[in-house]
């Protein structure tokens, strides 16, 4: 029977130059349906403990979401996963675009890459077949040129190319991957893992349509048409199309939580010059889409007087290279974003690491001599752009920043670690937990280090009559809480949302698809899985899929020695925010720790070690993961 998957996983041993295909059955997929869940399974099962993240033994996985490639708006995502060179923990990053759907059409749900090629290579995968090809001539070539060369070599204009740029080649610890030049698995340094394996790119082309492998194709297509219509009629998805994520700048600044000057304050005096109105006026040229997505939220922009081949900055880039670095010049933000995208550097970690260096510079912990002449004062745009270049090429002071803010702070010494806004080594996204507390919980407990797409932001659920809260009620959320509160009851809400967001990553929906962030209602998410697979899934089973994926990642981290003390936040967030409407707001250690204890108990984890109970892992049907922990579980 068709159940929305190809049943096939491609195994690649780059050291031996060997390829094989393995088939998995439907029962397997019902536990590990794709994306984060399938990647989490493969990474945990296959990676030896204490593997060097940049060594040949690290296992690099690309896994497509269960629904990815279906005609459902926003179901475009796939996961890149491995032990992270940035955090040393389980590493994972999702992207949309076109590559994930194409891999599914080419007949594979995942690729597992082991070993290290003796010289640069790329993979060429087409309709059930795969080959390893020479990429020596592509190393050091910019992604747009590399993509064109690969398409020519494989004689397919329609080949979708996932690749690394200079950041990945030079093992920058926060380098990511790009597909179609505009979509990024940016976080956690997955591009450096590819670079360490001498794997430049994975090109795919396939012709089997998703509907051909789905259980109830006619009704699935009908649901797809209904969701596409909703995407255009729903206020939230309409706004994502019209203004996109940069619309956040104005509201977050007015709320006093726009990360500014390395999280020193939450109001930026140049906010009006980098908000979505300015964006539309100054740099926006067009809007684009991911595969089959009616939301069409991607931005096209002009950089240096021409339309960029690398897409436009999202909110995260606008804030990271804007307010966080004290820069109010949108042209410079667009340029920094383009540089990161062509070098495949994570815009969040790059901007945040530079902002960290700027604070160190302004406080005299580093000087012109240390930085090799980079005058890293807040707002110095030319120094900021040069720093991006230097990081990508590990040139001069950029070589230190390419290690990420945590490692750089250790080398700089003194007070520097206090200014590194990171968790587990990964830099905070552009959201301040002093204004929305559950975001801080997510930053702290997330297995991949600080990230903003872990649960649902508090502000969405603080008014019980809002569209968002009304949508979330179907998840079992009954009570509204103030955005800044942290208490035991709120942790239940956090956990439901965390499992839901984790599920999105397993089945391939974008964060901007399902409620409460956006327009696809809970019943339609359930229906989409039922129609694609023929499984009689309930909401409860879907939430358990999400929870299972999180537990696999947690077990990976426990095995690497992570514990509760790693689930923490930068001390600055416990200090009063300066200025603006939130002036004086700070997280409280006592409240925060009490909330975490409650959360671990709800998760069925030991509140001191965060080790999942064997019984809970058995309930999640991953008792085998407890065996990996031996007596600890």
């Amino acid at each position: 029977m068709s159940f929305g998957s190809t049943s096939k996983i491609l195994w690649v041993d780059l050291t031996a130059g060997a390829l094989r295909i393995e088939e998995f059955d439907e029962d397997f997929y019902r536990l590990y349906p794709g994306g984060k869940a399938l990647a989490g399974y493969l990474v945990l099962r296959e990676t030896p403990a204490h593997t060097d993240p940049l060594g040949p033994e690290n296992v690099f996985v690309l896994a497509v979401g269960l629904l990815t490639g279906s005609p459902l708006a926003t179901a475009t995502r796939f996961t890149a996963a491995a032990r992270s060179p940035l955090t040393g923990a389980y590493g994972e990053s999702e992207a949309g675009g076109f590559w994930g759907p194409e891999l599914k059409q080419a007949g594979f749900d995942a690729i597992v890459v082991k070993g290290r090629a003796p010289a640069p290579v790329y993979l060429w995968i087409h309709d059930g077949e795969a080959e390893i090809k020479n990429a020596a001539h592509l190393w050091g070539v910019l992604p747009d040129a590399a993509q064109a060369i690969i398409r020519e070599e494989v004689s397919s204009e329609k080949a979708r190319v996932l690749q690394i740029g200079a950041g990945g080649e030079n093992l920058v610890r926060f380098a990511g991957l790009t597909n179609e030049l505009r979509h990024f698995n940016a976080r956690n340094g997955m591009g450096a893992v590819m670079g360490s394996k001498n794997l430049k790119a994975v090109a795919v082309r396939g012709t089997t349509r998703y509907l051909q492998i789905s259980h109830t194709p006619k009704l699935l297509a009908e649901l797809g048409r209904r969701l596409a219509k909703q995407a255009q009629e729903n206020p939230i998805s309409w706004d994502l199309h019209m203004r996109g994520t940069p619309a956040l700048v104005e509201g977050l600044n007015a709320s006093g939580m726009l990360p500014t000057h390395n999280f020193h304050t939450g109001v930026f005096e140049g906010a009006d010059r980098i908000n979505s109105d300015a964006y539309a006026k100054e740099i926006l040229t067009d809007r684009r889409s991911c595969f089959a997505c009616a939301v069409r939220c991607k931005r096209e922009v002009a950089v240096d007087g021409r339309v960029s081949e690398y897409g436009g900055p999202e909110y995260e880039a606008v804030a990271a290279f804007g307010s966080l670095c004290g820069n109010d010049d949108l042209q410079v933000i667009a340029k920094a974003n383009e540089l990161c995208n062509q070098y495949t550097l994570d815009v969040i970690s790059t901007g945040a690491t530079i902002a960290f260096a700027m604070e160190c510079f302004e406080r005299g912990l580093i000087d012109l001599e240390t930085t090799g002449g980079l005058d890293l004062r807040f707002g110095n745009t030319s120094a900021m752009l040069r720093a991006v270049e230097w990081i990508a090429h590990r040139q001069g002071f950029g070589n230190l920043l390419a290690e990420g803010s945590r490692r750089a702070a250790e080398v700089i010494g003194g007070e520097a670690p206090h200014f590194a806004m990171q968790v587990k080594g990964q830099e905070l996204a552009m959201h301040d937990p002093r204004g929305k507390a559950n975001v801080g919980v997510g930053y702290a407990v997330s297995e991949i280090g600080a990230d903003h797409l872990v649960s649902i932001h508090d502000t969405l659920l603080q008014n019980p009559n809002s569209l968002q809260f009304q949508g979330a009620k179907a998840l079992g959320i009954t009570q509204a809480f103030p955005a800044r509160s942290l208490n035991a009851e709120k942790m239940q809400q956090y956990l439901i949302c965390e499992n839901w967001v984790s599920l999105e990553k397993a089945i391939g929906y974008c964060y901007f698809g399902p409620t409460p962030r956006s327009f696809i209602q809970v019943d339609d998410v359930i229906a989409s899985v039922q129609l694609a697979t023929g499984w009689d899934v309930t909401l409860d089973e879907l939430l358990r899929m999400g929870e299972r994926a999180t537990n696999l990642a947690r077990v990976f981290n426990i095995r690497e020695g992570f514990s509760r003390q790693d689930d923490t936040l930068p001390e600055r967030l416990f200090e009063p925010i300066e200025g603006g409407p939130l002036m004086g707001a700070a997280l409280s250690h006592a409240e925060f720790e009490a909330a975490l204890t409650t959360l671990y108990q709800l998760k069925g984890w030991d509140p001191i070690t965060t080790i999942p109970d064997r019984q809970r892992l058995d309930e999640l049907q991953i008792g085998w993961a407890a065996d990996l922990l031996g007596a600890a579980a």
Partner: protein
Amino acid sequence: MILRLGGHLSFYAPQKASELELEIPARIPLAEVLQRLHVPADEVALVVINGEQVELKDAYISDQDRVQLFPPIGGGNGSDRISLDGA
């Protein structure tokens, strides 16, 4: 008065405009203006009048005011209270 509608609030406004210039003959409750414009109060998470955060239920406006409204996604009010009245 100038009314700025952040995020998806402009979806509800005439011509889906993100900024409206309205003539307000007398000091009136902001909620009344929203009702007339068909902007649902429950989607308003943050009200800023002339740079100051205000609760929607307490918000009165006059002709010279500059009013910014934000939905929960881009705003949230960072309040330490639950808002039951849309403010």
